[in-house]
């Protein structure tokens, strides 16, 4: 009985650890895309990425105040402190247009990702 319980416990724990041991999905690697925030605007405000590909975004905040990169369609929300740089991952995405915005300066910080 005790042996069976230990095996059961080991099984439960290893099943839970399994997702972490899986390698990251092998996809056609894409060069990181660099985005910057200046005067509460994204530069570039629009950029293209290939469909069904995981893409790395490096967002650099050139303003002194923090900004939050947010998009419902991309399902991402990340704060970028003033003067700092953060990394985000988006995709794999189906073809289409995915808007994003800076939550703290929505009047000017607007952008789109065009997935083709």
């Amino acid at each position: 009985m005790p042996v069976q319980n230990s095996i059961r416990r080991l099984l439960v724990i290893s099943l839970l650890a399994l997702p972490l041991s899986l390698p990251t999905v092998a996809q056609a690697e894409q060069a990181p895309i660099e985005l910057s925030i200046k005067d509460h605007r994204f530069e570039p405000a629009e950029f293209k990425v290939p469909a069904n590909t995981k893409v790395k975004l490096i967002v650099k905040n050139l303003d002194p105040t923090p900004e939050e990169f947010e998009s419902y369609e991309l399902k991402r929300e990340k704060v970028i402190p003033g003067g700092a740089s953060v990394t985000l991952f988006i995709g794999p995405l189906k073809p289409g247009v995915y808007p994003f915005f800076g939550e703290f300066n929505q009047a000017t910080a607007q952008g789109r990702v065009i997935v083709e």
Partner: protein
Amino acid sequence: MFAVALIFFREVLEAALVIGILAAATTGLPGRTRWILTGVGAGLAGAVITALFAERLASAAEGMGQELFNAGVLFTAVLMLGWHTVWMSRHGKELAKEAGALAKSVAGGTRPIYALAVAVGLAVLREGAEIVLFLNGMLAGGSTDVPSALTGAVAGTVVGGLAGYAVFRGLKLVPTKQLFAATSGLIALLAAGMAARGMAYLNQAGYLSSLSDVAWDSSRLISDHSLTGQALAALIGYTAAPMESQVMAYAGTVAVLLLASWLLGRRDRSGAGKGPQMALAVGLAVGLSALATPDAEAGFKVYSPYVEHGEWELEFRGNRSVDDDPGKDDGRSFLYEIGYSPLARWHTAVFLEAEGEPGESNSLTEIAWENIVQLTEPGQYWLDVGAYVEYAKGLDRDDEHKLEWKILLEKDFGKFVTTVNPAFEQAFADGPTDGVEFGYAWGTYYRLMPVFEPGFEAYGELGEVADIKDGDEQEHFIGPVARGTFLLGGTQKLKYNVGYLVGLTEDAPDGAAKFELEYEWRF
């Protein structure tokens, strides 16, 4: 003497607050002083007349005349304050910018100014009438005499008036944009408090007795009879042991006023809407708590492995069990939480849990500290992973505490998002009670739109890891849910999640209705 002073303090403060808030919110409007003073005068005259007719009113409607009259007065005041709030949200921004020029252009605003006089008049009338009634009762009952009553009256009036004036002055020092927002919020709460008081009078008059169960009792925290309680009663309509009808009237008034302001007013993101919307979140939470009824059961919440740096949140959630067996029906639990994310990947929160077993009233059962750590960058790996750790201390039973930890997993499949939380719990009472217990929470949702995402959730408790229970003794639930996020302006968000879970096993109740309400903001 102190009792009389307290009565005068409270009644004068209430009237002074209504006058002060309305005066502050209409600074710059021509004739507003005249209209407000007219209202005061009319109210005082009405109070005197009411006093003269007090006996006649009481004998009418089988001794229920006073209550119905008071309820009527209160509900009229709610309508008037509501009209004022909606009008303010529509024109508040312009007033803030060009008070003088706008004052002329609101010639069509004569009606709203008239509403000010009516609201002020009714407030003064009600307070005055109440003072008269209280005094009559105290003098007739011999608990005070005329000289000490006079001293108390003067003292109470002076302090109450000063307090009201202080609010007025305080409000005047705030920048006009925030002023309108703050005053709209305060007015919404004042109106809600009046609606709740109206319900109390209706109840005394014999109406709505089906909703007269006491929703909660917080007199241990803030008693109705303490100065804090009296001040809160005047400011936001606090009652230590409100009836269900009062809670619903309060929340309903706040919700309606906010909806009206939002629909009919200007939607701008400068933060001018903060006051009313905060009142909405509070009102909704307060209202839902009267309707919430849970099983004495862990919370039905699915956690995502994400942290938003710098965000504050207030959360209120609960559930209620439904079962043919009265021993399992109407079990309630709910939870009040406040949290903050001090780091980009660490969220921490404190919460209080209250429970009501079937057939018993609610009581505070637990205080806990929870932490969420985001472990991976969203989308970087096949799964997004986070960790949850909670330490809880029992409040009604001695020495009971527990440690709970969960793995938070989330994955998107197109527009479907699935979140799974395997969960472990170890209870202690002078040493571990049983072994580590295992359970899970599962949610799959369709990301249709921000305000509405339908899906389903499932929860289960399997018993000890070392000794999993037989199928029927385990508890499993599954059922449909809807969740969404409302953007309130600025960076504020109101998130909700409601659903009905069906119990799948013998030991689980037949069903459980659940809800979550979360208000998020940043400074």
